[in-house]
């Protein structure tokens, strides 16, 4: 199964404060362990929400709202995608992760939907289309 690991934002990430050398080194080491274990699919950091935007959907209307967004603890500062055998394995890995922020922080683990989870509405045509897209993306990455 695939899981997404979400690092919640705080004042420092929203202010664009970069991690110090020590944390970058610890994260580098942790990331290498994830790769060696075949767990790592992707890992990225997000710029502060001041560089971001939101699009609100209401009926046919689309409204663009520029960042920054005030509710810091609702925001994401970074994420990983991992391939694991169980939720437990994901939790064990997160417990080994260096504290990602200078002070208190929180990491959320969420299971990613696979094609099987969508049921009959995910028709064979849509499924074939999804597989084509994934193959295209994999070819692009290689």
């Amino acid at each position, binding site marked *: 199964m*695939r899981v*997404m690991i*979400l690092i919640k934002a705080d004042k420092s990430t929203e202010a664009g404060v*970069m*991690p110090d*050398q020590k944390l*970058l*080194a610890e*994260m*580098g*080491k942790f*990331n*290498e362990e994830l*790769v060696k274990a075949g767990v*790592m699919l*992707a*890992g*990225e*950091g*997000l*710029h502060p*929400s001041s*560089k*971001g*935007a*939101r*699009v*609100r*959907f209401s009926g046919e209307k*689309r409204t663009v709202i520029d960042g920054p967004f005030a*509710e810091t*603890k*609702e925001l*994401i500062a*970074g994420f990983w*995608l991992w391939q694991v055998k169980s939720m437990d394995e*994901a*939790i064990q890995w*997160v*417990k080994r992760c260096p*504290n990602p922020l200078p002070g*208190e922080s*929180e*990491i*959320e*683990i*969420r*299971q*990613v*939907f696979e094609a099987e*989870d*969508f049921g009959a*509405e*995910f*028709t064979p045509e*849509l499924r074939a*289309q999804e597989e084509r*897209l994934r193959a295209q*993306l994999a070819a692009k*990455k290689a």
Partner: protein
Amino acid sequence: MRFMIMVKATRETEAGIWPEGKEKLFADMAKYHEDLAKAGVLLDASGLQPSSKGARIKYSGGQRTLVDGPFSETKELIAGYTLIQVKSREEAIEWAKRFPAPHGATADGEIEIRQLYELEDFGPVEAIERFRKIGIGTKK
């Protein structure tokens, strides 16, 4: 530049309930992502299962505490994401405006667009080369 388009959770996504007209929504999402792929913009996309299947780890004073889902603050949660590679923030917003209404054509919804850090943004740090070697924080 790379951007992440995040779909915010709702009571329905958290309950694992698909919107009415699910078939059309899936078809719209498939078409939109095909368009992204054709334009060479699409990097990845996935949906997330309800937070009831998830967990959180809290870091405080050197301690790690595990908290099992579900999590009550639904509007803080993410229900899915699309990763794109574009030339500008404007291009990212233009694509985001074409995103299918994420919870069905007539339902209210919100998506958030956030720029990804590239390794160059972290400055000259030795450890950054180790990130680059394993393909993290780099354009595909």
